[in-house]
């Protein structure tokens, strides 16, 4: 767009025509990355589906060993963090620097609470010998082999989800720094928006993980 007014915004990278093009590129880039993530977790969901179909009984029994109360609290925590994230994006669009900082801090705090509760749950599983491997123990015994597959999936799925949360916290720290030093303005808020896309995606993964892992066989 040669006609566009070249107001050289400090955040405009040299190879883009204007901030609008830069924002479109960043947004599309994140969506493409999330498509990658869908396939990444998709492989896990496939493995889960196969073994859930084969070993439905063992999966139901093993699922009852998970702490539904903590899982439910964590679901609520994470959904709330998505709300604060959305509010942070909204505040960024309006250029309300202090509100952006407030909501980012709230999002990070909720993320940290989630990880803390997750850690407590992991600790319980460790104590109960529900970590797969040589020391794995499970009652009733006839389900022990297949329960080990359930717990392998539980740890790898929630573990990779938690890793994504940790990366999300890193991104939020970075965004907090940008908001703090005034880089984020009503003109240039796409970094917050794009980080928000990532955060919401990680939440959505949990929305699938929670029922698939915690709530099997609980309906009448």
């Amino acid at each position, binding site marked *: *767009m*040669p006609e566009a007014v070249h107001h050289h915004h400090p955040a405009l*990278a*040299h*190879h883009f025509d204007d901030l609008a*093009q830069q924002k*479109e*590129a960043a947004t*599309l*880039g994140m969506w*493409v*990355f999330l*498509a*990658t*993530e869908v*396939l*990444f*977790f*998709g*492989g*896990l969901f*496939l*493995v889960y589906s*196969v*073994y859930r179909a*084969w*070993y439905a009984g063992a999966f139901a029994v093993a699922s009852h060993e998970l702490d539904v109360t903590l899982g439910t609290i964590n679901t609520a925590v994470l959904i709330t963090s998505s709300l604060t994230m959305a509010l942070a994006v909204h505040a960024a669009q309006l250029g309300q620097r202090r509100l952006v900082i407030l909501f980012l801090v709230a999002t990070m705090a909720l993320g940290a609470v989630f990880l803390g509760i997750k850690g407590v749950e992991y600790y319980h599983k460790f104590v109960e010998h529900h970590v*797969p*491997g*040589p020391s794995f123990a499970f009652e009733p015994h006839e389900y022990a*082999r*297949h329960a*080990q*597959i359930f717990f*392998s*999936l539980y*740890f*790898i799925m929630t573990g990779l989800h938690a890793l994504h949360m940790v990366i999300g916290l890193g991104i939020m720290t970075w965004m907090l720094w940008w908001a703090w030093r005034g880089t984020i303005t009503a003109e240039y808020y796409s970094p917050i928006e794009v980080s928000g896309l990532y955060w919401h995606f990680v939440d959505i993964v949990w929305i699938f993980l929670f029922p698939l892992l915690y709530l099997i066989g609980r309906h009448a």
Partner: protein
Amino acid sequence: MARVVHPARHYLNDGYGISSWLLTRDHKRIALLYLAAVTFFFFVGGAMAVMIRLELATPVGDLVTDETYNKLFTMHGVMMVFFFLIPVIPAVLGNFLVPIMIGAKDLAFPKINLLSWYIYIIGGLFTLYALIAGGVDTGWTFYTPFSTVASTTNVVPTALGIFITGFSSILTGLNFIVTIHRMRAPGMTWFRMPLFLWSTYATSLINVLGTPVIAITVLLVAAERVFHFGFFDPRVGGDPVLFQHLFWFYSHPAVYIMVLPAMGVISELVAAGCRKPVFGYSFVAFASLAIAVLGFLVWGHHMFVAGESVYSALIFSILSFLVAIPSAVKVFNWTATMYKGSVSWETPMLYAYGFIGLFTIGGLTGLFLAAIAVDVHVTDTYFVIAHFHYIMVGGTIMGYLGGLHYWWPKISGRLYNEGLAKLSAGIIFVGFNLTFFPQFVLGYLGMPRRYHAYPPEFQVLNVLSSAGASILGVGYLIPMVYLMWSLRYGRVAGSNPWGAVGLEWTTSSPPPTENFAETPVVTWDPYEYPAADLEGHVA
């Protein structure tokens, strides 16, 4: 017409220090970083191939032990597939050309582009560590439960190397997709794009959607080895065949990651070498997308003998046959482009001819393997080896070398020695066929892959194959020499030595850091070759 002068200012003399290369965000310099790295891994993987062919010169296992042999073919496959064939054309030629071909200053995310090179290097170092620490013996396919339970070799470092390098492919693919969507110059519509970009785009889709699946798969293998998690372990009810499904869901499309960019290169070479628009442009463009989509639906043909149900095998067989349609569309359209064209015999075209012939053989023998009954007969024989080397070496490497020669004057600003280049193209063609054609026969006669010894009656064909490999090796070394030589002593190329059309030939050679003095405005269709252009052609 282009005056033959070296531009005063270009991307190669824009900074000389080591950090001007290692911290560059210029897609052209990153392309050269990749060129150096993939060439290194090509020769590492090639050294393994040399050892394999030396061992197979005699029927008895006399040069290396069976265990060493297992490690040789494993590391050959890992190095060549993950560190050479998958990145080579996108990361070298694609990185250099995608922004220039659409009239952009750079890729959409220059820092991510540099990051992807470092990720590639880190993944490569893990794999080199695995090699130096004693290698890995599972085959590049890492089939469970051997890879998870039985093998005592360096599976985890290799798996991590592949996992890490995968992110390099993903980020490069992501960068290309966003760049092609969002960075095209004014007037550069989708159907004015060179076909190389269509195939790069299709490849990027596979990279972005397929690579994460191999990433999670090798991660599960590593978790099973390190933490004794049970995903594929029959002792806890796990299914080893599930691993094969996950592995081939990526690794079959990976074949198209390797060959689609080469097809894109061939479209450019044929148009420039025949001075005509590519016949049926939109068919060739959509054939790339069709191959990318169909490629995701055929993985089961690797598992016809792995206890797959007859019905799934039938479906996978039919779908595999369907891939032949878009592939044949391309071959026929290239051939139709040549018809009544001003057909050139310069080096890039020699590689294009080589590609078309060898890819056709590789593709048609792929149909043998898609036919269930034939596949059962030749599964895990040298027939399969010959087939996929015709695609990967005869296809991808021919396309890559053709492209490297075609765009070398643009990349370096210099012309290489045409006589030596033609000679080595000929040597490579002869050496390749002598290496791999006998393997079709060996496989059909029943020689299995992955053994270091074989019955004596197979020796003649194996000696032919080993002799061909040594000729092929010479053919690969010669371009190394004259291309390096041309950097200093080659004739100055000028901006358009081939008299070709396409935005990359409108800027100087080597291009300036920002690619174009002014953002181009595109008002023409791709491959518009007026007859008068013939005179600007350097003979």
